[in-house]
């Protein structure tokens, strides 16, 4: 390892320059010399890789092959996962989380294999502690480099980068936010766990008096109700009675992610777009946020029927 702390080093003959990419193609970087000479556009360091792995695992809903878009800015790193234009998840790794964060003023955005990224972050296993992590990026066409050290082991990873597509802008605030509920994460998870997950859709109803989740399917129907003054709510604001139906598969990532969050804020805007904002307390006591947007199925918008 080189002594230069601000650089991801290349061991003599031991660097993993990884597979680079240009556009939608991937090319192997043949010239190690080229890699070494090109300056890093971005480098950051964190002493405990587990913190990042924990936050990012909130976005993992596929067993493997899941892609994500990474945006690098002065404020931090943002990972985005999407499904068509009905679902989006974002994890924010704010720059304060890192012991070092060197941003070169060039905003970067690209796609990577998120499943493999998580495997790399967790390379030494979940039992391993004190895994230090450096992330580096030399710019367009170069792989995202990771350096993970634990005890006597050093791991270099190079993840291919692909051009990112335009991310969905749900423009949540573009319509009035009518309903807002803050709940401890375990309570909301418990409520959703009661539903029949073999159903295709779930309906969420918010009225000034209560909060209701329901599913209806071949095996029957199921309903969970909380009155507005229930102790499960840290706060409950309902400006307008709303009933919306969502695909359970699109709600699932946000619900799964509740298991690592302390609490969550659920908001609905006028057109029934649902937003979850999960608050996660990290090992180092910093707070991080992961949010999710789920679009309603088109038939039920502001259905005033009970």
């Amino acid at each position, binding site marked *: 390892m080189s002594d230069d702390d601000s650089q991801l080093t290349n061991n003599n003959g031991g660097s993993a320059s990884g*597979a680079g990419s240009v556009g939608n193609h991937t090319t192997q970087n043949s010239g190690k010399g080229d890699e070494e000479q090109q300056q890093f556009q971005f480098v950051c360091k964190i002493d405990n890789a587990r913190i990042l792995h924990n936050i990012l695992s909130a976005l993992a809903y596929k067993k493997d092959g899941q892609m994500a878009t990474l945006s690098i800015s002065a404020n931090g790193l943002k990972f985005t996962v999407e499904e068509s234009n009905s679902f989006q998840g974002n994890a924010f790794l704010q720059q304060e989380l890192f012991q070092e964060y060197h941003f070169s003023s060039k905003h970067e955005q690209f796609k990577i294999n998120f499943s493999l990224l998580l495997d790399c972050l967790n390379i030494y*296993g979940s039992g391993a502690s004190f895994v230090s992590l450096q992330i580096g990026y030399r710019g367009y066409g170069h792989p995202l480099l990771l350096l993970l050290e634990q*005890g006597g*082991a*050093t*791991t270099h990873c190079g993840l291919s980068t692909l051009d990112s597509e335009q991310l969905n802008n749900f423009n949540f605030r573009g319509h009035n936010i009518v309903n807002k509920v803050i709940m401890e994460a375990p309570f909301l998870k418990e409520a959703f766990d009661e539903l029949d997950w073999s159903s295709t859709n779930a309906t969420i109803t918010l009225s000034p008096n209560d909060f209701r989740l329901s599913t209806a399917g071949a095996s029957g129907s199921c309903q969970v109700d909380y009155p507005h003054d229930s102790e499960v709510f840290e706060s409950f604001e309902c400006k307008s009675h709303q009933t919306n139906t969502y695909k359970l598969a699109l709600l699932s990532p946000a619900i799964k992610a509740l298991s690592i969050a302390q609490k969550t804020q659920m908001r609905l805007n006028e057109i029934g777009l649902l937003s979850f904002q999960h608050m996660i307390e990290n090992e180092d006591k910093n707070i991080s946020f992961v949010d999710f947007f789920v679009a309603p199925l088109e038939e039920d918008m502001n259905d005033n029927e009970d």
Partner: protein
Amino acid sequence: MRFKARVLPDKATLFQRVVSTVLQISKECVIHLTQTKMQFILAAEITEGGMQVWSGIASNCLFEDYAIESLNNNEIAFEISLDHLQRALKSGQDASEMLFKLVKKNGVPYLSFVIEKQGQQTMSIVQDVPISMLTQVQFSSYIEPHLPDPDVQIMMPPLKILRNVIDKMKNVGEYLSIWANMAGEIRFKVESDMVTIQTSYRNLDHPQIEGKSPPRVNPELEAEGKVRVKQFSKFLYSYQVLPNNVVCCIVEGKAVVIHILLDDLYMTYYIPMVVL
């Protein structure tokens, strides 16, 4: 032909762990008993690039009242299904006594376990594990691979963490590159279109082979090769026996040989190198 032995009470767990470790690789196994040792041999598919496992333990390390007699130099070899053997050994856990012997029932050979458990009452369990005898001629086709001296031999890094690393590497591709030198360094690498992962260790020791002079630490001596990551990962199950030493030998162009050592127990994994 005669064979019987009693499992030493505090060695039942080790016996179980050895069987369990070999079972992770293959259910079908050959057991070879001699006057001094018990061997477990997995030598199937060697010609198709398959890995081999040769494991042995001194009989007096696991057993007492060990008696063996046969026309073939007092050696006995048979095929056995390790999952059946494991089941018998599980019954023997916490037993006050576990004996086993070769028997024939209705003309069919078995390894018969007689287990006594003390509880409120004494319970006696008999487990017969079917076996398939190998003749001297049949067994003679099992020959431990003879390889040239390794180019590099180096202590493996701790298995506990290495297991997790190799596990993640399995997700990336079929082949694992291993590189090591005689200056304490070893590197494991996998690559695909999407990712390259390389894990390296330094300051590893080089074992001294009995009867030979201590290894000369020489950074210029290095060796590497590619193996199938799935095969390679199988030796990692041996963490169960809590080995004293795990040595990695690289014979360039031929094989990676891993030696697992714990007192009188040895497990040798021969992993063929792939030439792509």
